């Protein structure tokens, strides 16, 4: 069944169409949610909420405004950011460290996506979101600032810190000695 028919069926709340649409796009949604979530459980919550929103708001989807994939991606990202905004209310104790480890070329090839996700999750929430939105999704700092309710300069500084931290984690992962070999 083509996507247009599936969407039409979903608008009529047809369960079989909803499930078919879900099965077709669940991998895309889960891939996106994993980048933002702190763990797999949270990523599943994001995907669930996103699909519920998709099926309740599908009447507002207009094919001429963009592909369904981009619409779904936007919803998943919004769900992730919404979760973040809720959790942002937690005034967590911030332990700021100034990481001054020099950036060195790092061997990444043996790192699997799972490993990268694990490293991403080690980042503080704010850093992770800024990093993913900027590097993976291609948002500008202005857009990130608007989404997260921060200033563009904060976004920039958080990105810098995120990169440094990530590199630090990667270095730790590969061991400093191994990395040094490749810097020669």
């Amino acid at each position, binding site marked *: 069944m083509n996507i247009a028919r599936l969407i039409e069926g979903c608008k*009529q*709340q*047809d*369960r079989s169409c*909803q*499930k078919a649409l*879900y*099965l077709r796009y*669940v*991998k895309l949604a*889960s*891939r996106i949610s*994993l*980048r933002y979530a702190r763990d*797999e459980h949270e990523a*599943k919550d994001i*995907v*669930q909420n996103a*699909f*519920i929103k998709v*099926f*309740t708001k599908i009447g507002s989807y207009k094919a001429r405004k963009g592909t369904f994939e981009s619409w779904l991606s936007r919803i998943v990202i919004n769900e992730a950011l919404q979760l973040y905004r*809720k959790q942002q*209310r*937690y*005034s*967590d*104790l911030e*332990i700021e460290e100034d990481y001054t480890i020099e*950036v*060195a*070329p*790092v*061997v*990444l*090839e*043996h*790192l*699997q*996506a*799972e490993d*990268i*996700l694990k490293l991403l999750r080690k980042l503080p929430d704010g850093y992770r979101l800024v990093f993913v939105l900027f*590097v*993976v999704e291609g948002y500008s700092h202005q857009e990130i600032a608007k989404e997260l309710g921060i200033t563009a300069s904060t976004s920039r500084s958080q990105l810098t810190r995120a*990169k440094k931290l990530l590199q630090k984690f990667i270095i730790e992962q590969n061991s400093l000695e191994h990395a040094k070999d*490749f810097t020669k």
Partner: protein
Amino acid sequence: MRKILPNNWERYLKRSLEQHQTQWDEEELWQGIEPQLPKPRKRRPLLFFYFLGVAVLLGTVAVLIPTPDAEQSEPFVSKPSTTDVASLVDSSRRASNTSIPTSILATNNDKSKAKSSTSTSSLPIQKTQPIEPLAQQSSTAATPKPITALSQSPLEELVVPMMKENSLEPIATQQQFQALHRLPIQALPVAVPKIEGVQLKNQYPQIGISPYMTIALTHRTFNALSDAATGKIDTRRQLEQALESMEMGILLDLQFNKNWAFQFGLARQQISERFEWSDINQRKFSIQSDSAYFYLDGQNQKQYLEGKIEAVETRTRLVRNYNRFTLYNIPLLVRYSKRDQRFGWHLSGGAIVNFRTTFEGRLLENASILESTDIEAQGIYQSTVGLAWQLGAGIDYQLTPRSQLSLLLHHRRFLNTFTSPTTDFEQRYGFTGVGVAWKRWLK
């Protein structure tokens, strides 16, 4: 092994993440989604027939109860005037042996008075035609003076509806008109007294219908299990409690006498529940640090030592929740009203039976930081039928003898609509609202 340079490691990360495939149990995930999806739209034939029944009932009441001869219209009384309704009888047919009672043939002696009449009765009569009394016509045996409009219509259709519409006393009896009708009538000169705005006595019971709309705001009384008692949340501070409501409905008024009436009807009420609270939770923990302690060395420089640092994490969660209910209400109210000229006031009060039909929203679990509760699944608000009481007051403005506009103020309190028989959950909503109603008297 290929070296990844610093300027493209981000690109590598991006590509890896985009190509990543999850190995989730998709069926299990779907099981979590499906129950929360909106149900396919159901037709509600019962509700439709209910509305249809109410409409038929109102219509039947309106039709079956005869229109009284009089209606209350004191503010609109003006001086009586006269209207000349002239018709001419075909003189040739009148020459036959049929006699027309002279009592029904009023004269029109004063033609100037007729011309200056401010009658609102509009018979299709060309008044420029000189109208002669029947007796006079018969004596002169003049040629017919046809009046186009009148001559094309049966007399009964013209005269009888006119009387009904203007609540006029008939000049002739039905039998007399029938006698006339058998005649080759061209026109009948009749002088009918016209009263603008009749002032006649009231007749009770009177029946009226009142479509109305109200909007209401309220504060909410929240009685739930103490969160602190669960040990999971230290304190909960409810910051804001509000409900917005809009109701539209129709009331049937049974006015027993000048002051007292009974009202019942059907209304649809939409309630938007909006509340906000903050949960505060604190956790003590320790972290390992390489600079937990320090001492000053011989050069007065700080030297750091490893150790554990005690820390307190304070989590504050601000929760906003939006729920939406739809109720169908059957108001059963007693109303006392007073009127002076066009303005009046009223007091009303009574019970409201309500049926909760839909609920949209989620309630956050009292004892949980993050989990929410599906209210329908958990059986909270199991009472789909409830009771409320209401007190109200308002001012009325008489628009026409048969209709009035009212501004309403009311307070409504739900007694058991939002309670659960199986849990300690109990919420007693109270609404204070304003509204507008328009009333039309059917009788």
